[in-house]
């Protein structure tokens, strides 16, 4: 049985469709990444799936429950970390965790145990007596995510949970989430950071203009929309007229600051042409690197293909 099953979901605001006929299915124990540019419909979608907003039409089944007809039954079994910060300013970190557990009906001894464990796992021990209003954005975000693990759940929605976290805390969180999915938790994860999606997600859906653009595993998306490898050449100077000379070479792009990028399944021929174009331009190659295309490259290409006028 799918953990999330949505069919033909639509939601409009003031005559503009924020979500337009979206269908998707998420299997248990998986991390499902939901990607899209700003205004693509991600937040509206997550609000409908978490029962915060009713769809105009379509059906949502969460953990086998009709989410439109029985939202409270759904909410008892899911966890939600919203994109916006949520906190009680006057409570200390420790108190905030315990009170959140109390709100979910976790027995006193159990919530004390869980709060202590989560403060340890999320590195909150040093700030446990600090009030929420006195925390940095990153610390507050860690408390917000940790707090959601105070209660039991079968499905967790995370809406850009790493915003404000430093790289180390970000990696720690992703590892923690991976570990939790190993225990059977299903995660619905939205992010703008494609390296996160690549690292964490088993499956990805890309939404744009309120519609699902494509779905697949990170590898599948790279294969489908990527172009094999990326070769980068960093030049010592931005040679005048170089961009014009490179414009005819397939997969080649001159970036501001003296960087030339070649994206191609077999970049050898393009590289040979670029080297020829550089000859006599006055620019010298300082660094050259070749790498497989990332999901981010594939995502950007996907979005550009759909951009008006492309």
């Amino acid at each position, binding site marked *: 049985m799918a953990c999330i099953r949505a069919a033909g979901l639509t939601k409009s605001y003031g005559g503009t469709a924020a979500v337009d006929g979206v269908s998707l299915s998420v299997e248990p124990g998986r991390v499902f990444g939901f990607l899209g540019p700003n205004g693509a419909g991600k937040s509206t979608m997550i609000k409908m799936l978490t029962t915060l907003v009713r769809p105009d039409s379509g059906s949502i089944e969460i953990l086998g429950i009709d989410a439109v007809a029985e939202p409270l039954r759904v*909410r008892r079994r899911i966890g939600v970390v919203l994109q916006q910060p949520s906190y009680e300013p006057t409570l200390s970190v420790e108190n905030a965790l315990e009170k959140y557990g109390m709100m979910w*009906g976790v027995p006193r001894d159990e919530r004390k145990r869980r709060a202590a464990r989560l403060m340890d796992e999320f590195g909150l021990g040093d700030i446990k007596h600090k009030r929420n209003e006195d925390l940095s954005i990153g610390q507050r975000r860690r408390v917000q995510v940790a707090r959601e693990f105070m209660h039991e759940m079968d499905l967790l929605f995370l809406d850009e949970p790493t915003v404000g976290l430093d790289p180390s805390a970000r990696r720690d969180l992703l590892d923690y989430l991976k570990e939790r999915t190993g225990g059977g938790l299903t995660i619905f994860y939205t992010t703008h950071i494609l390296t996160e999606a690549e690292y964490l997600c088993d499956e990805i859906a890309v939404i744009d203009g309120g519609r699902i653009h494509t779905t697949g595993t990170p590898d599948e998306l790279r294969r489908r929309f990527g172009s094999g490898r990326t070769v980068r050449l960093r030049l010592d100077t931005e040679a005048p007229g170089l961009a014009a000379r490179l414009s005819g070479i397939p997969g080649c792009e001159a970036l501001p600051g003296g960087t030339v990028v070649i994206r191609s399944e077999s970049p050898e021929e393009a590289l040979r042409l670029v080297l020829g174009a550089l000859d006599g331009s006055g620019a010298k190659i300082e660094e050259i690197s070749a790498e497989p295309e990332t999901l981010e490259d594939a995502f950007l290409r996907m979005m550009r293909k759909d951009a008006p006028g492309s």
Partner: protein
Amino acid sequence: MHPVLRLLRRNVTISLNPGFLIWQIIFPLVYIFVAGFAYAPLISGVPLGGRDLDYPAFLASGMIGFNIMNSTLVSGIIIWNDRRHGMFEQIMSGPFTRAHYILANIGTIGVIGLASASLIAAVGYPVFFESAEFSLYTIPVVAFGAVTGSILFGSLASIISTRLRSSEGFNVVINTVFLFFAFVSTAFYPAEGAPEPLRTAFFLNPLTYLVDVIRAGVFGGITEFVLVEMAVLACVAAALFVAASRLLTKLDL
């Protein structure tokens, strides 16, 4: 524990901060013991229910109503803070409904209002000890006033908090409204003897009705006019409660 009780417990916990307690305890005490005794030589006696009350007793009973009104600010502050700090949305994505949220807020107002009234009654007791006439008939009247007044002013604060997003706007509006309620009422001075337009304005103010009902309960002067005031208080409280509930139900997520 029922979801409403869990939310009520959370509301009380987040409201009981030192600033709020000082506001609730120190401020009324200063009024009762400083203003009460300072003005007493100037105001020889205040007529109430066919007898004269000394001013400190009059003021202490007025402060019960005033403190109930002040304590209900907490409802507006909770809603406003929950919206500003994302907790309203967070709670609504948890095991709660909007009805739970509204009922918990009303419960919080009731608990804080009653606790506040009891506190001032206890502190003010030595002051109006001689003239108080508590009985099986008057105590329910005081409780009625405390609960109805809490719902009325709590609903009003809730309505204001659902309409305003900025902290400046919220503070300006709530302080202006409550300042008007506090001083254009019979909480601090009697309506008798006030110039006519002001006297009429006193009776356009729900705090006047609340304070009159509390005084009638404390000093045992339950007249027909007080019964009318109780009815007005109940009707206004019900209307504002319905309005506040509707606004909260429609609040965007």
